[in-house]
């Protein structure tokens, strides 16, 4: 399966090489490939970091059947607004990002932690190892947390992140994205993913996004612009729903289901 072209040490592959590898793997998808291929050579960092053995089937046991609980002692409401975390206004396009967190049966994941992090409008992270030649925004850290409400709804106000270069290959650019960290009702539902913006011209070129080979599954990482969420003279609105796997807990252990 390894199709990574051997580049000389220290020499980055061209976009043409990466794109041709992406194209070869794109044609090999089958329906039901809902997750990224963890063995995805166009994403060079994955080559030595993906397991080669099949995952071992396990029945979840006690510690895996119960997700950690987060509450108002863990998260302050203001942490959901990334535009007010400093005394000044961050630069960029102010956006609202909202949606529901659901489990695999379509039930809302209630009162659970959602964490996000992202680059600023210029495509730079507040991280000492991010040395992209773009300005840091003194009024934007790019991290937020919130709890879902009783309907499973999360809500963040932030700045639209910019695309940024990375060294996977020559002239590699990530599409603009927001990283999301999610918990369900079981620990087995733990998920970290990335939300993308519709219409990004970089999608076809990006091996991380293209590691999801089923086009329908890829589209599930795209937020939708929702004009009804936009606010007059203030911000643009995006909607993105997130679906975790099913819960293994029995209904007996989920009394809150009865008050739905």
């Amino acid at each position, binding site marked *: 399966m390894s199709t990574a072209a051997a580049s000389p040490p220290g020499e980055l592959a061209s976009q043409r090489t990466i794109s041709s590898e992406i194209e070869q793997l794109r044609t090999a998808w089958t329906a039901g490939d*809902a*997750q*990224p*291929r*963890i063995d995805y050579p166009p*994403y060079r*960092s*994955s*080559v*030595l*970091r*993906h*397991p*080669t*053995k099949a*995952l*071992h*089937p*396990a*029945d*979840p*046991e*006690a*510690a895996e*059947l*119960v997700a*950690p*609980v*987060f*509450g108002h*002692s*863990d*998260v302050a409401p203001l942490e959901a607004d990334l535009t007010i975390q400093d005394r000044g206004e961050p630069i960029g396009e102010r956006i609202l990002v909202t949606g529901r967190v*659901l489990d*695999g049966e379509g039930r809302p994941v209630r009162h659970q932690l959602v964490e996000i*992090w992202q680059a600023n409008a210029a495509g730079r*992270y*507040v*991280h000492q*190892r*991010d040395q992209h030649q773009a300005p840091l925004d003194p009024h934007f850290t*790019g*991290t937020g947390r919130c709890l879902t409400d009783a309907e499973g709804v999360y809500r963040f106000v932030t700045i639209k992140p910019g695309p940024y270069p990375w060294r996977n290959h020559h002239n590699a650019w990530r599409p603009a994205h927001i*990283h999301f*960290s999610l918990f369900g009702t079981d620990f*087995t539902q733990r998920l*970290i*993913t990335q939300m993308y913006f519709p219409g990004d011209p970089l999608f076809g070129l990006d091996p*991380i*996004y293209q590691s*999801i080979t089923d086009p329908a599954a*890829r589209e*599930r*990482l795209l937020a939708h612009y929702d004009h009804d969420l936009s606010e007059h003279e203030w911000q643009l609105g995006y909607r993105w*729903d*997130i*679906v975790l*796997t*099913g819960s*293994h807990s029995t209904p007996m252990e989920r009394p809150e289901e009865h008050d739905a």
Partner: protein
Amino acid sequence: MPEPDPTPGQTIGPFFAYALPYERDHELVRPTVDGALRLHGTVYDGAGVPVPDALLEIRQADGAGRVPTLEGSIRRDGTAFTGWGRCQTDAVGRYSFTTIEPGGSGAPFVAVVVFARGLLHRLFTRAYLPGANASSSPLLASLDPQIHERLIAVREDDSSLRFDVHLQGDLETPFLTFPGEV
């Protein structure tokens, strides 16, 4: 209503370290409490090179086998045992939690989830206590002995537990999938 399709995972990337870690995230209990136990190890890639930009989380029962459902994991007050912790690896791939031994019937374990740059979807595994064996665990019983011993933490001379994670290679850690996952 048809069941909704799952949202795919993506890599945590290299720059989570200003966002997800928080104060005492790796201390499920204070190191000074009775029974405090260090669970630590190194994350290696397929070339045996330590992975400096991984994030591990653990979830576990208390000493009596109860899985806590208390809040307070992010702003820890040092009293509640919430049974959840998070630790990023350091420059040489090491992680370390301070916790207690999980108890209960069967073969108690610490559930572990691994994220890393280069890893496109999270990986689940388990760190069993020394002495765990196939007769007390359906999962261990389902694996070859040489494979299942990679799920059992090693007691070090200082009485800490070491559980190394090998993402790939001859010592590849057994990673798990659960019913209903796609």
